[in-house]
């Protein structure tokens, strides 16, 4: 289990536990947080699970693939650290990862 800190749209800080190999999206939804619509079910076809990775974690998380970047760069809320939660898998190295949910499109 790795720890994940999620700041929801209401500004609340949530500390979640995630199994390695599961996506951030699944961890967040399984914790009962409903901020992420994830309309395509997590197959990288929309941009409704948009989160911002905290600066300190950018290098560890890395960049998304080309598809993900294409989805995100046209979002009006695109900024440094923008990622899709469905495309980040939890690993032991990401223990303590901090992300913030982006505003709704």
């Amino acid at each position, binding site marked *: 289990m790795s720890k994940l800190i999620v700041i929801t749209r209401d500004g609340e800080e949530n500390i979640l536990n995630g199994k390695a190999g599961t996506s951030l999206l699944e961890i967040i*939804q399984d914790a009962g947080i409903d901020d992420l619509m994830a*309309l395509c079910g997590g197959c990288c076809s929309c941009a409704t699970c948009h989160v911002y990775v905290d600066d300190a974690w950018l290098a560890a998380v890395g960049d998304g693939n080309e*598809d993900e970047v294409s*989805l995100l760069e046209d979002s009006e809320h695109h900024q440094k650290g923008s990622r899709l939660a469905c495309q980040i898998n939890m690993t032991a190295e990401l223990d303590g990862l901090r992300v913030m949910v982006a505003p709704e499109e």
Partner: protein
Amino acid sequence: MRHRKKNMHINTDILIVGAGQGGAQVAISLRQGGFEGTIAMVGDEPDAPYDRPPLSKDYLAGEKEVERLLLRKADYWEKSNVGLYVGKRVTSIDAEAHLATTDGEEIFHYKYLIWAAGGHARPLPVPGGDLAGIHVIRTREQVDLLRSEVEEANEIIVIGGGYIGLEAAAVLIKQGKKVTVLEAEDRVLARVAAAPISAFYEAEHRAQGVDIRTGVGVTEVNGEKGRVTSVVLANGDELAADLVIAGIGLIPNQDVIEAAGAKCSNGVDVDDLCRTSLPDIFSIGDCARHANKFARGASLRVESVPNAVGQAKAVVSVILGAPKPFTDVPWFWSNQYDLKLQTAGLNHGYDETIVRGDPATRSFSLIYLREGQVIAVDAVNMIKDFMAGKKLVENAICPDREKLADPEVPLKSLVI
């Protein structure tokens, strides 16, 4: 002595009929919006709300476990104080009295009812169409049965070259099966896309080994001991089959609400806030027929997750007292092999199409115009065009055709 069933009366502020994507979203959004009343959700499948699109894709392929299909963890509904009644069917509604009865023992007394009952797969309408070994893909149970029989099958015939049929064919050919797709129209995806998209997907499937046959009607299915053995075509040919999948469309579930007096046609007629013709009854999702501004106001049903979710939010906005119609651009996706097809808009009534890029590169898009205005975009492995296409459709842009056809000109630059 005759056993008398005891009815259980349940008072609920909100009764959601259908535990699919739309129904689930009504409950989620109500709680998110601070609604503190009682919510009950009735679904005729045994499962808690789950994600349906993977059924013909990674779930069929065995790459996604059932727990990962669930829209929310099993305990979410209880924690959110949503009464989940699964494996039950609402069989009658008394709109005047605000009562709904199930095939179990429940009689719900509701304030608002949301009919989110979706649809069922159209059964194969030919002699032998109900033989064992003939499958449809709509529910988790149906796909589990299909998967269990696929293991033993070698020759599989898919009837219907739409999204569902082609997605299933893509999964099954990868499992080493002999797969034939029979499409009655002269091309696959005929009802949803224009010819260049059809030609591209036909070629892709053929290259993968799928036998695609178009312009082929099915007249009969033969069987032995109640189980399918062959499919008979309109030209008299007979093709051997161990297993048949019928992907020939969806029939909206509307009988019960129609019997209750709701105006229905092909679907339950609703206004821009998803209100039916009956008091305090809404309908959303695959079964809701609405005037869609992206089809010039034509009435239609949109079978997609984003539509179900958007309409759910519109209903919640009414219940919470700040009505807001759902008017987003419709969008769809289909994953086959390594191809991601994304569609923005509705192409109804297009009078011109423009290909952007070279289909041979397996990354291109097709723009649908009506009187010069972009009404839809099909993007194949071309996410940028999908995202920009949504905006072109939303803003009803009539771009310069040469620029549209030039893949070097970003579609985004044509959004005004």
